[in-house]
């Protein structure tokens, strides 16, 4: 019994480095993400003043300083002195900063200094008192801890400093560049929401196309016997190392002749071309690893190549397809270079919008984080959607025991 316990303990201790590493990795990933997420939901002022981790602190102004220094004269309800009613918002809004409030301490009331020098509150308490007065009198509204305004702003592409899209619409109403109808504004060309749509329009065909073509090619490389098969496959594998940047100029000139610049078709073809070598390589290796007898069985059952591909190969190659889909989708989704060159501002994609946001709002972290989070949430969703196809033992039961 003792020995069993000791062995257990030893195995737990042995695994500590592993656990530490795993937890460390999780933290490295989760902490920045969490920071991004929280920041994206905080109002601008809060983002500028405090770090995202302070969101857990209470923001209610405390009344302790007021009670210490002011309750005696002004009363607990702030209105004990009618001539200077601290409960009235127009009175308090005169104190635009702590200095304005401090000045009143020198004045004389009823023949005595308002507050003698030695009894005055320090700066910290003064700040507390002012915050308390402002909120209690209704001079300013308590800012909300969380807001979706950042998301709303970036979705419609509202980028004025200070204020939000909702405020602007409320106060100024529609302008030539702003209809104040959310969905109408969100689909304008400089809105992030439109960028998301454009990114989808680029990514989905750019993912499906190469994988489909790679499937055909992989089937041929794996199961068909034709001249030059090995040479062609070696060539394809070699193509993987061609740097994308090298081809930008020739392809751009080709597209200019064909009129494909600034069109989705051009970007689809470009991504397909660069996705294919790796996709074919991976798919061929996977498909060639499927038991030969299953395919032969299907031929004997009367299936032609097309049907074998569709009914036997594709369903069995699902894990490879899922893996490829995730890779290709993420690569295309996060791509800026290709989209910038072949689409530019004609159909700005999300990454392009993000880079623009960086330029126009150097300090606009509240909106930057919201836009960034939108752009990372989608690949994450794609990953979670496809990861269930990473199933082991898909083939079990087909051959042998």
């Amino acid at each position: 019994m003792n020995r069993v316990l000791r062995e257990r303990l030893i195995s737990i201790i042995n695994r500590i480095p592993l656990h530490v590493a795993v937890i460390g990795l999780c933290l490295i990933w989760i902490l920045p993400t969490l920071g991004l997420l929280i920041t994206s939901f905080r109002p601008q002022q809060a983002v500028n003043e405090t770090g995202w981790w302070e969101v857990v602190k209470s923001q209610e102004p405390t009344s302790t300083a007021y009670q210490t220094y002011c309750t005696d004269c002004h009363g607990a309800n702030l209105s004990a002195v009618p001539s200077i009613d601290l409960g009235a918002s127009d009175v308090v809004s005169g104190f635009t900063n702590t200095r304005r409030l401090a000045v009143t301490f020198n004045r004389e009331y009823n023949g005595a200094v308002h507050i003698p020098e030695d009894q005055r509150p320090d700066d910290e308490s003064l700040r507390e008192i002012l915050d308390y007065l402002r909120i209690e009198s209704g001079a300013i509204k308590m800012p909300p801890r969380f807001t979706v305004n950042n998301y709303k702003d970036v979705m419609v592409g509202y980028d004025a400093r200070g204020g939000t899209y909702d405020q602007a619409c409320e106060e100024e109403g529609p302008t030539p560049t702003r209809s104040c109808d959310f969905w109408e504004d969100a689909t304008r060309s400089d809105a992030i929401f439109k960028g998301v749509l454009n990114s989808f329009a680029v990514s989905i065909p750019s993912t499906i196309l190469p994988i489909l073509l790679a499937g055909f090619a992989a089937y041929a490389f794996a199961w068909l016997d034709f001249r030059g098969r090995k040479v062609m496959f070696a060539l394809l594998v070699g193509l993987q190392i061609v740097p994308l940047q090298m081809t930008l100029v020739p392809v751009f000139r080709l597209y200019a002749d064909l009129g494909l610049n600034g069109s989705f078709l051009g970007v689809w073809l470009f991504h397909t071309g660069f996705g294919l070598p790796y996709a074919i390589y991976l798919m061929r290796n996977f498909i060639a690893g499927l038991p030969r007898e299953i395919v032969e069985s299907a031929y004997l059952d009367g299936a032609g190549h097309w049907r074998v591909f569709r009914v036997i190969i594709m369903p069995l190659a699902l894990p490879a397809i899922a893996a490829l889909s995730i890779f290709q989708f993420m690569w295309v989704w996060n791509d800026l270079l290709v989209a910038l060159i072949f689409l530019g501002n004609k159909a700005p994609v999300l990454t392009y919008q993000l880079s623009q946001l960086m330029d126009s709002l150097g300090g606009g972290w509240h909106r930057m984080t919201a836009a960034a989070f939108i752009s990372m949430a989608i690949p994450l969703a794609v990953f979670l959607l496809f990861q269930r196809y990473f199933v082991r033992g898909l083939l079990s039961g087909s051959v042998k025991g």
Partner: protein
Amino acid sequence: MASVSYRNVWKRWGDVVAVHDLNIDIPDGEFLVFVGPSGCGKSTSLRMLAGLEEISDGEILIGDRVVNNVAPKDRDIAMVFQSYALYPHMTVYDNMAFGLRLRRTPKQVIDERVRETAASLGIEQLLDRRPRQLSGGQRQRVAVGRAIVREPAVFLLDEPLSNLDAKLRVEARTFISKLHQRLGTTFIYVTHDQVEAMTMGQRIAVLNAGKLMQIDTPTNLYDHPGNVFVAGFIGSPSMNFFDNSTLFEEGGKMIVDTGYFRVEVQKERHELYRPHLGKKVVFGIRPDNIAHSQFVPPGIIPAPVEANVDVVEEMGHEKILYLEEGGKTFLARVDPRSDVRVGQRTQVIFNMAVMHLFDAETEQALQ
């Protein structure tokens, strides 16, 4: 239903010859077994018939149609693979219906045939399961079911039993034999196991190194092997060979001198063997035809031989003796009551009525 013919069929992989000038005619409805050691070309021969391998030279006929350039799906054949090759993502029902659907069989007919076939194989309760939920024996039945449900003209089986455990294998053997009797279709069965070949085949084609060694009924293969390879391959334990034997005549008797002992050839064979007098021959006799002197079966032509007992294997219903004489070991299968001990010198009786002589050079039987 159809006959099958191999006419001068060759299969080459570059310089390697896998199948060497194969000629076989398989009449309609026959159960033919290809048997041979691994790499002898038996699977390749079957796969060429199925259309899964190109035929390098020669012709293969199904019925009276040359199928060299006919796609596998148009040859009207079905095959059971060693690994079963079930479609893992389909249910048993879909596995069986797959071929019928591709042939545009009406839905109702498919359903009828699948259920009928499943019932005849005892797998009707498995129709909704997937291959991974089946045991080895069940998978094997599904594979057979998938093949027969299409009612092919020729039915090919490529070592279908080698993934089963010993007990299931015996059951499956009778199951396939019965299936053949019931369907009456041409069956071509590939195996490396001579027991499977002997028990199931109506005729057996023994292949070695890409060449057809002999094709005949099981009994004829056993009783009259055409060459040393077949003689050694068929039968277990395999035949004893004495390579450096000579044949000579002495005082009206014909004697085989193995170099370890001498035995006399029966009178009836004198005429047959006379042309080979004085030549090197291979003398062969099966362990089954060597008895212990204490229990000599009736009606044999006895020839006594003395030898040392090296090993005794007690099988219960028999004893296998490993006998040694002058450095040469040979086996005898004797009555279990025989009183033999290891290290003893004992007398065994050869039944010369069923001995074999082969030409030492060509390894062909002297006939």
